[in-house]
C-alpha cells in the first residue's frame, strides 16, 4: 500500500514512490534519472515549451512533457528510448539552427546548457540551414548583458521576473519565430522597471542573459548576505583566492536562492577592494602611520586603562558584526571596562521596536516569520518601503498579492507597494498615532473588535478605549490628511480579514514618539486578535543583517544578553558569577547621549567597532564636535570610514566573508556564516581583536573559535539556550526562542500567551513631530534608504555597478514644488535645516507629496544627516530621522 498523498510509479523500470503532487520530472530527478530540460525550473510554474523533457507514458497518447505531467498511481514511464532520442535530437537541431555559431567567444562557453545538451546529443554539425534571429545587443544594465540572438525562448527569465521578483519588467513580444523577450516598449533594459535582481540572468540557459565580466569560480562557500535584515543565503564564488561572484543559495530557507541586486551583484566587490584596511594605523602628528598589532593593542590598552570603572569610556558595537562579536564587545564594556556604556546602531533604527513591543507583548521582535506573509489575507504595511529595503520580503508580499491578498499601505511616499495597494493612505509624516487610534475607534464603534481575545488575553483595554474615543474620523482626518472614507475602509478590512499581518519599519520607529507608534500598532493588532496565529502579528523589519542579533546579545546600555535588565539584582548576579567580576548596575548611555556626553567632555574614550556615526547619526555637525572632543577614539573597521579618519587608532578587521559566527535575521532566525577567504593583510576578525585587547587589560578572554563564544553566550541568554553552532551545522533551522537543545525553535510568538503573560494595551495620545515646517523652513524632510545602496554606502559604494545605477545623492521633489521653484530634474538644490546645509541633485517625482522632500542617507557628499533632528524618543532614545523641517532652494548657476 502506498501512503496517503503518495503514489507509486515506474520510470525506466525503477519503482518510485513520490508525492502525488510531483511531476514526472520531479519523480525522475528524485530517482536520479536524467531527463534533458531547458524550460523547467523548480521554482517556476511549468511552461512545457522546449519539449526536450518529453517521455513515453503507457496508456497516454503522444509524448507528454515530463515537466508538466503529474505522476499517477501505477504510471509506467520511459525516459530514454531511441524514439525519444530521435525527437529530442531534432528539437536540439531546431534550437541550434538559429543560434549564433560563436561558442568559443561566448561568455557562457562551457557553462551553457544548450551547448552541454548539444554535446549530450552528439550534435556536431547543423542539418538545418542557418536562420538568424535579429536583435540588438543591450549592454545598458550595470550588471548583465542581453543578447537576444542567443535566446532559446524558454521564457524562464520572463517567468522569474513575474513569479519570483514580481516586477514583470520583461515579457515575450511578437509571435512564433519572431517572439522576443523585451522590456516594455523595447527600450534599453536600464530604462525599464527592471530592478537588476538577476533572477532572470541566474536562470538563463544560454548567454542571452549573461553577467558582465563573468569569472567562473573554482569553489563556492555558503554564507549570509551582509546587507539587510532579511538574511538571504549567498554562495560566494572563489577563484585564485578572490571572490569573483555571488549566487543565491537554494538551500537557504529564507531566500531559497533568490537575491536582490545588492546581495547578488553588490556584496563582493568591497571584500577585495584595494582600500581595505590591512594594518593597524596610529595617528602621529595628525597623520596615520602603520603599526604592528602588538604596538597598536599595547597602546590602546594603555590609553583605556585609566577609564576602567569610571563610566568615561563608551563602546559602539555593530549590527554588521556577528552575534559572537557583539556578545564579546558588550562583555568587554561591562566586565573589562566596568561600564554599561555600550550601544549600537539599533538605537537609530529599531530601539523603539525593542522598547515598545517588549512592553506591549514581552518580546521586541517580529511576532511571525517571513514566509507567513505569503499566506496573509491582508497585509498592512506602514513606514516600510519593503520592495527596496527588504527586497526578498518584498517578493513574499508580491507573492501574497498574486494569491489575492489585500494590501493596505500607510505611507507619505508613493512606494511600489503603495502603488499596487488595494488602499493607499497618504498620511502626513509623524501622524501615525492619530491614524492608528482612529482605526481602533472605528473598529470599536462598529463592534469589529475581537472581544474574546481582548477579555482573555489582554489588559488595560478600558484606558485604551477611553483614549481613542476622541480620535473621530473627522479629527484624525484633519491631523493626518487621510480621507475619512479611507480610514473606514482600512479599519473594516483589517479587522474582518481572517489573517491580517502588520508589517512596519523605520517609517514608524524613527520618530521622537517612535515607541508610541510601535505600541499603537500593537494595540491595533490586539484589539482585533490579529496576533498569535499564523500569518498575523506585528512585524518590524530590521534594517541591518545582524541588528536583531546585536540587540539579542546585549549590545544595549540597559540590558545584558537576552534583554535581561542590568538594574535587576538577580540577573546581574547571574552575569557577575559567570564573568567573575562585579558589574555596574546603572544603565549606560545610548548612542546620541554618548556623543552629546563626548561633546560635553563627560565621555573621554570611545571604541567603535564597525559603525560610521559620522554619516549615520542625526545632526552630523554635532556628532563631529563630539568625536573631536574625545581624548581617545579607536575605530575598528574594514575601511577608513568618515569616522575612522577622526580616530587616534584604526584597527583593521575582517569582513563577513572572512570569518565564522552567526547572524540573526529579522525573523529571529540564527544562521551560520562560513569563512570563504583570509582577511587582507593583517586584518583580523573583530572577536580576536577584542580578546587580545581584554587580555592586555587584565581580563583574559580565550576562545578557540566563535562556536565556543556562542557556547558561553547561549547559556546566559534564555532565548538562545538551545542554539549552538553544532546544531546549526547539523542543518537545524532555528528561530528563537529556543529554550533547549531539543527545541525546534519558534516561528510564531505569543500563540497561547504573550511572552509577558497578558498583552498590554497602552493608551497613547498623538503628539506631533518635534519639528514642524514653518515659514522659514517650509518643507518636511523624510530620510531613508533605497534599493541600490546600503546604509552609509561603505560597502555598496565600492560596487561599480551600483554606483552606475545611483551615482550620488539626490532629493525627491514633487513636480508642483519643482515648478514653483523652476527646478528641473538634475538641477542642484541647496537644502538647509536649522542644523546644516547640503547640496543634492533634484529628482522631480510624484513619489513624494507636495511640501515634502525625500533624501537617501547613503552619500557622504550630500549627507542627509547633516540636516536631521536629534530630538529623541523619550523611552527608546531613537532620533527623529523621519521628520524635520528644511528649506529648499535652487543652487544658483549650477547644474
Amino acid at each position, binding site marked *: 500500500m502506498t501512503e496517503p498523498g503518495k503514489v507509486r510509479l515506474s520510470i525506466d523500470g525503477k519503482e518510485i514512490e513520490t508525492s502525488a503532487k510531483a511531476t514526472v520530472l520531479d519523480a525522475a530527478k528524485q530517482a536520479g534519472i536524467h531527463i534533458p530540460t531547458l524550460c523547467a525550473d523548480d521554482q517556476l510554474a511549468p511552461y512545457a515549451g522546449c*519539449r526536450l523533457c518529453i517521455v513515453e507514458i503507457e496508456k497516454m497518447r503522444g509524448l507528454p512533457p515530463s515537466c508538466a505531467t503529474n505522476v499517477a498511481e501505477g504510471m509506467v514511464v520511459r525516459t530514454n528510448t531511441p524514439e525519444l532520442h530521435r525527437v529530442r535530437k*531534432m528539437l536540439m537541431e531546431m534550437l541550434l539552427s*538559429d543560434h549564433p555559431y560563436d561558442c568559443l567567444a561566448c561568455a557562457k562557453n562551457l557553462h551553457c546548457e544548450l551547448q552541454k545538451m548539444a554535446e549530450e546529443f552528439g550534435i556536431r554539425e547543423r*542539418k538545418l540551414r542557418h536562420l538568424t534571429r535579429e536583435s540588438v545587443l543591450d549592454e545598458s544594465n550595470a550588471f548583465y548583458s542581453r543578447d537576444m540572438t542567443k535566446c532559446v*525562448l524558454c521564457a524562464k527569465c520572463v517567468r522569474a521576473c513575474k513569479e519570483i521578483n514580481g516586477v514583470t519588467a520583461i515579457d515575450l513580444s511578437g509571435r*512564433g519565430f519572431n517572439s522576443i523577450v523585451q522590456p516594455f516598449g523595447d527600450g534599453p533594459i536600464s530604462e525599464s522597471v527592471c530592478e537588476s535582481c538577476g533572477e532572470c540572468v541566474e536562470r538563463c540557459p544560454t548567454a542571452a542573459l549573461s553577467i558582465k565580466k563573468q569569472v567562473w569560480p573554482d569553489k563556492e562557500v555558503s554564507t549570509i548576505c551582509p546587507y539587510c535584515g532579511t538574511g538571504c543565503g549567498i554562495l560566494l564564488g572563489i577563484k585564485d583566492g578572490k571572490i569573483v561572484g555571488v549566487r543565491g543559495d537554494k538551500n537557504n530557507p529564507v531566500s531559497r536562492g533568490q537575491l536582490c541586486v545588492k546581495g547578488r551583484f553588490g556584496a563582493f566587490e568591497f571584500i577585495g577592494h584595494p582600500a581595505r584596511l590591512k594594518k593597524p594605523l596610529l595617528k602621529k602628528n595628525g597623520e596615520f602611520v602603520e603599526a604592528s598589532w602588538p604596538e597598536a593593542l599595547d597602546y590602546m590598552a594603555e590609553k583605556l586603562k585609566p577609564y576602567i570603572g569610571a563610566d568615561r569610556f563608551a563602546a559602539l558595537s555593530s549590527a554588521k558584526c556577528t552575534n559572537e562579536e557583539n556578545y564579546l564587545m558588550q562583555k568587554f564594556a561591562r566586565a573589562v571596562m566596568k561600564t554599561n556604556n555600550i550601544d549600537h546602531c539599533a538605537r537609530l533604527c529599531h530601539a523603539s521596536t525593542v522598547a515598545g513591543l517588549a512592553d506591549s507583548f514581552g518580546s521586541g521582535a517580529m511576532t511571525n516569520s517571513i514566509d507567513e506573509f505569503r499566506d496573509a489575507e491582508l497585509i498592512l504595511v506602514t513606514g516600510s518601503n519593503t520592495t527596496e529595503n527588504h527586497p526578498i520580503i518584498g517578493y513574499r508580499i508580491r507573492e501574497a498579492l498574486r494569491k489575492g491578498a489585500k494590501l493596505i499601505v500607510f505611507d507619505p511616499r508613493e512606494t511600489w507597494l503603495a502603488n499596487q495597494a488595494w488602499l493607499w493612505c497618504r498620511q502626513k509624516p509623524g501622524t501615525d498615532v492619530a491614524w492608528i487610534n482612529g482605526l481602533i475607534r472605528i473598529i470599536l464603534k462598529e463592534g469589529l473588535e475581537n472581544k474574546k481575545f481582548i477579555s482573555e488575553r489582554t489588559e488595560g483595554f478600558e484606558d485604551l478605549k477611553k483614549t481613542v474615543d476622541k480620535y473621530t474620523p473627522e479629527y484624525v482626518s484633519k491631523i493626518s490628511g487621510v480621507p475619512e472614507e479611507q480610514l473606514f475602509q482600512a479599519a473594516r478590512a483589517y479587522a474582518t480579514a481572517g489573517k491580517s499581518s502588520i508589517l512596519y519599519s523605520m517609517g514608524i520607529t524613527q520618530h521622537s514618539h517612535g515607541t508610541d507608534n510601535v505600541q499603537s500598532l500593537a494595540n491595533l493588532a490586539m484589539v482585533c486578535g490579529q496576533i498569535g496565529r499564523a500569518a498575523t502579528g506585528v512585524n518590524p523589519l530590521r534594517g541591518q543583517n545582524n541588528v536583531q542579533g546585536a540587540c539579542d546579545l546585549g549590545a544595549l546600555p540597559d540590558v545584558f544578553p537576552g534583554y535581561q535588565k542590568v538594574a535587576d539584582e538577580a540577573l546581574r548576579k547571574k552575569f557577575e558569577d559567570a564573568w567573575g567580576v562585579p558589574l555596574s548596575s546603572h544603565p549606560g548611555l545610548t548612542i546620541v547621549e554618548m556623543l552629546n556626553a563626548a561633546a560635553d567632555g563627560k565621555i573621554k574614550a570611545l571604541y567603535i567597532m564597525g559603525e560610521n556615526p559620522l554619516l549615520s547619526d542625526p545632526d552630523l555637525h554635532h556628532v563631529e564636535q563630539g568625536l573631536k572632543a574625545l581624548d581617545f577614539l579607536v575605530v575598528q573597521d574594514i575601511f577608513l570610514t568618515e569616522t575612522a579618519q577622526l580616530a587616534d587608532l584604526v584597527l583593521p578587521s575582517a569582513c563577513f566573508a572572512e570569518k565564522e559566527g552567526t547572524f540573526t535575521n529579522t525573523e529571529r532566525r540564527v544562521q551560520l556564516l562560513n569563512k570563504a577567504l583570509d582577511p587582507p593583510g593583517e586584518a583580523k576578525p573583530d572577536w580576536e581583536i577584542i580578546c587580545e585587547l581584554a587580555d592586555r587589560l587584565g581580563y583574559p578572554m580565550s576562545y578557540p573559535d566563535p562556536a565556543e563564544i556562542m557556547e558561553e553566550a547561549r547559556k546566559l541568554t534564555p532565548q538562545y539556550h538551545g542554539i549552538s553552532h553544532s546544531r546549526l551545522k547539523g542543518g537545524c533551522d532555528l528561530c528563537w526562542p529556543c529554550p533547549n537543545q531539543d527545541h525546534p525553535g519558534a516561528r510564531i510568538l505569543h500563540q497561547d500567551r504573550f511572552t509577558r503573560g497578558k498583552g498590554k494595551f497602552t493608551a497613547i495620545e498623538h503628539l506631533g513631530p518635534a519639528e514642524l515646517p514653518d515659514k522659514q523652513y517650509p518643507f518636511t524632510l523624510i530620510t531613508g534608504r533605497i534599493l541600490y545602496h546600503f546604509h552609509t554606502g561603505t560597502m555598496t559604494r565600492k560596487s561599480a555597478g551600483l554606483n552606475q545605477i545611483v551615482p550620488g545623492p539626490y532629493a525627491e521633489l514633487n513636480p508642483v514644488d519643482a515648478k514653483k521653484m523652476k527646478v528641473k530634474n538634475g538641477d542642484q538644490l541647496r537644502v538647509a535645516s536649522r542644523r546644516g546645509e547640503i547640496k543634492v541633485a533634484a529628482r522631480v517625482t510624484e513619489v513624494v507629496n507636495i511640501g515634502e522632500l525625500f533624501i537617501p542617507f547613503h552619500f557622504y557628499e550630500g549627507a542627509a544627516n547633516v540636516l536631521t533632528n536629534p530630538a529623541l524618543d523619550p523611552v527608546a532614545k531613537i532620533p527623529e530621522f523621519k521628520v524635520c523641517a528644511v528649506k529648499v532652494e535652487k543652487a544658483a548657476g549650477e547644474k
Partner: protein
Amino acid sequence: MNEFPKILSANWGKPNSAGIETYLASGGYEAARKALGMEPAKVSQEVLDAGLRGRGGAGFPAGRKWTFMPKDNRPRYLCVNADEGEPGTFKDRDIMRFDPHMLIEGIIIACWAMQANNSYIYIRGEFEEPAKILEKAIQEANQKGFLGGKIFGKDFNLQVWVHRGAGAYICGEETSLIESLEGKRGNPRIRPPFPPQKGVFDQPTTVNNVETIASVPFIIREGIPAYRKFGTEKSPGTKLFSVSGHINKPGVYELPLGYPLMNFINEVAGGMIAGIKLKAVIPGGSSTPVLRAEECQNVNLDYESLAAAGSMLGSGAVTVIGEGTCMVKLLEILTHFYAHESCGQCTPCREGAPWAAQIAKRIHEGKAELNDIDVLSSLGANMMGRTICPLADAAACPIIDFPKKFREEFEAHIRNKGCPQAKPFPVEFK
C-alpha cells in the same frame, strides 16, 4: 442558396433578419422559455441525445461537454468562440450578421443548462460589423427581459458580453482565448487543468463555437426527432459549409450532414471554375488533411465518412483546388501562415513551422535538394502531437501530407530547379 432544409440559415434572406421582431416572428425565444422550464440537466441530455457535435473543429459532443462543468458554487462561464480565424472558414460571421438572436437564444439555453450567469462572446477583432450587430441584439434581448436579471421571470440572471479579439489566429484555440479574455497575451495553457476545472479567471468555463450554440434552439424547440430527421445516424442535423477556392459559387451553404462532397462541389456550389479539373480538396479547414481528387469521389460531408477517408470534417471549410495548382506553393503559403500564427511557446511549432516554410520556398524556387523533402517530412513528424496546443498539429498536417500525396510534384521542382509551371495557380483563388 439551395433548396435544402434550413435550421441555421432559416431567416437569412428575410428583410431585417437581424432584428428581434423578425426572430420572434419565426418562433424565436420560445425554445429559451421552454428550456428554462426544464431541469438544467435535462437540457444537456436533450442536446446530447440530439447528437449535436462541436462545430469549431474537434467535433466533441456539445451536451457531454456541458456536463463536465463542476457543480460547486463557483461562478461559471460560457465562452462563445467567434474568433473564426482559420483560412477558408467564414460561416460564424454570417450567423452573427444575419441572425444574431439565434446565437443569443442558444446562449441562454446553454447557460441555463450549465447554470452559468455570464457569457462572453469572443469575437475576432476584424469583425467590426458583426460585433455591432451582436451588441444591438443583446440590447434588444435585454429590453425584452430575455437577458439581464430574472430572465423569463425565472430566478436566473444572465449577462452576455461581447469581447473583441486582438487579431491573432491562435486566440481561437480555447485556452488561448481564455488568456486573451483575461487581458493577457494569448498563449495556450497547459492542460490539465481543462477549462471546466479552471477557465476564465480560474473559474469553471465551457468554450463552444458559435454554430454549435446557434444549433441548440431548434433542438429544444422542435425536439430530438425533428433534428435527427436531418443528417446521418452518427452525424445528425445540418451544418454550415463555407466553400472557397477554384469554385464557381464560393459562399456559405447549409446542408444536412452526410451530403456527398462531389455533389456539393459540382451542383450546390456551381462546379469548378472555368471548367478546370478538380485536383484536391481540403475538406474541413486548413488544418485538416488534404484529399486528392480520386479520394473525394465517394466521400460524404459528415464526421465518419471524412474520417474514413483520412481527413476530418473540421469547421466545414471546403477548399477546392483545381488542376494546375502548384502544391509546393500552396504548402509554402499554408506553412507560412502557421509560422506566422504560432504563439512561440513550443520549440517544434515555433522553429518547425518557419523551417518548413523556408524549405517549401526553397523547393519552389528550385534551390533545394532531394533530401530536403525528407527533412520536411521529418520536421512535420516532429511537430505532430508534441506541443501544448493543436496548432502545431494543424501546421504539421500539410507538411506531412503534401510531400506524401504529391511527391512527384515536389521531386519535379528539384529536378527542374524551380516550379515547372508558369504560374502557381491556374486561376486566382476565391
